[in-house]
């Protein structure tokens, strides 16, 4: 049973590493997509503002990811 669970976890980890591999980038992209969807469909926000926020969340994810990498290098 443990072997099956381990294999499933390994497969999930491999899938995560293949597609994202970085929690900040994944969270930044997810927040960008969800917030843009909500702001357009429910908030009826101006198009330009949604576009700016969409790009800003993506870049925030990238910048945080780079910062975390530097932090981990400094700590080691």
């Amino acid at each position, binding site marked *: 049973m443990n072997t099956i669970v381990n294999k499933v976890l390994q497969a999930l980890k491999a899938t995560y590493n293949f597609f994202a591999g970085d929690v900040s980038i994944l969270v930044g992209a997810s927040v960008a997509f969800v917030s843009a969807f909500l702001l357009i469909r429910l908030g009826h926000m101006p198009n*330009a503002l*949604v576009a700016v926020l969409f790009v800003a969340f993506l870049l925030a994810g990238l910048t945080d990811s*780079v910062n975390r990498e530097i932090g981990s290098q400094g700590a080691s």
Partner: protein
Amino acid sequence: MTAQLWAVFIAAFLASAVEFVEAFTIVLVVGVTINWRSAFAGAAAAVGALALIVAVFGTALVRYVPIDALRVVVGFLLILFGLKWLKKAILRYAGLKAMHDEEAIYEEQLAELRARGEHHQTRIDPFGVATSFKSVLLEGLEVAFIVITFGLQANASQGAAAGAQPSGILVATLGALAAGALVIGAGAIIRAPLQRVPENALKFTVGVMLTSFGTFWGGEGLGIEWWHEDLFLLVLVAFYLIYTWGLVLWLRRTAPKPPAVSSPEQDPATQQEALS
């Protein structure tokens, strides 16, 4: 061919070139240590498997996923791939991560195979085939997804134009094949790791392209109407280039540098970094 199809071709070509250079190093090690028949058999089998993945996933997604959902999924995946590539390229340009060193990888893999007792032989060797197959498949998987996502989106855009015959996946596949032919051709001539390919510049360029296209298509799928439509892609490319290059310059000035070592052979940690 439209401007968008050219962009798809170029993005697929550049992304594939980076991955093929990395895969070629392992194929070369197998060819030199065991024999070229095993190396090419493994590589050819992997290319076949990748073509099958593109055909199956590409067809299934086109048939069963609605266009707006497809745009969102494709955009999301392209952004994840693009930002991941950009992050690595930024850290390497800023001097915080060792440059990808094909020579170091070549030497390490060569030593590994020799330590296993592998030697030159004339018959097809299953281990050599498997090693070559694995390296090409693993490096090519990301390219396969890029080809599928770019191709599908180009298909969708073409489908919107009246009377157009969608050929996005074909164009993206041709871009990947052209890169493969170029890398294998160059490798066959020089019979050495392709060290002089500017891998980081390619990675940076592809990262910007994937992120820009992902932002554009993902945003479109969500309902964002981009100013001046397709032309806004150029604005996104310029913006991401400026932002990420600004990040590189800022990191070069402010980030603490890792301790310097004279060569990768002397420092296992640096050697490991170069391999990833």
